[in-house]
């Protein structure tokens, strides 16, 4: 799905940015996600419950934000890459209607047996540019892209 060229181990550079992914979850998407993930915690669809808990509206599922970060990574690495590990912390609340931008940056390259691993820091910024959702991830990529 990646629009750019999929990364290979020989070419990827520490400090390189992962192509960002923008998402704008709305209340409809939260309901779809609640159903698809079997998560019926009410602060994600019942405004009265959400405001009673001190939120200004229903809030975006943390796990949906994890799904967005995973999509950014799988879009980037393409069919030949594999997501190996991912860690995400929900430090800030996000609300539907806001534009969430997933970003990432390569922090290390290492070999583990026959796997070529690339470590990244990843995060989501809200529309005001605040990082609400920091994390890290490891992907496995081919050593090099075969020349066609």
């Amino acid at each position, binding site marked *: *799905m990646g629009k750019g060229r999929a990364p290979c181990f020989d070419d990827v550079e520490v400090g390189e940015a992962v192509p960002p992914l923008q*998402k704008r*979850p709305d209340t409809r*998407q939260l309901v*779809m*996600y609640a*159903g*698809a*993930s*079997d*998560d019926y*915690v009410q*602060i994600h669809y019942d405004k009265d419950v959400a405001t009673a*808990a*001190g939120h200004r509206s229903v809030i975006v*599922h*943390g*796990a*949906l934000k*994890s*799904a*967005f970060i*995973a*999509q950014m990574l*799988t*879009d980037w690495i393409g*069919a*030949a890459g*594999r*997501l*190996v*590990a*991912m*860690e*995400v*912390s*929900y430090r800030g609340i996000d609300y539907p209607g806001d534009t969430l931008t997933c970003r990432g940056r390569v922090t290390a390259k290492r070999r583990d047996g026959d796997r070529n691993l690339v470590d990244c820091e990843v995060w989501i910024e809200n529309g005001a540019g605040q990082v609400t959702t920091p*994390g890290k991830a490891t992907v496995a990529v081919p050593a090099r892209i075969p020349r066609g």
Partner: protein
Amino acid sequence: MPVITSEMRALIHLDTVPVTYEIEKGAIRKFARAIGDANPIYHDDDAARGAGYRGIVAPPTFLRSLVPGPERTPFPEPFDRILDGGSQYTFDEPLIAGDRVTVVSKLVELFEKQGRLGTMLFKVREIRYQNQHGRLAATQRTTTITY
């Protein structure tokens, strides 16, 4: 006053009742639509096979839909408000439509903090997802905050 009791601590490391899910194509497609991911490997068998999978593959966080079974002894929850603190995943083998995945969760850590929201109780659970070959397909370490 601390909210964590010895009764709560006694529940650490106890496995939930295992529950086995068949990974269904329809559920995968529905999840992929819900997260807004149009990657054809989640929707189309040929595309998935072209990418080296046996069939339609589940998005990485599809694991969230495979809800663990009940705790053998229910956690004596002192709070009614809940927040998700975050998750740490390791993905060892992809989940492919038709796979059978057995899910077992256990509480591995329990701690409390004073914060903006008052006393917050943190429960860290480790969820293991084993496929029909008896191999660990993935692990999720997830933190639930109640307050």
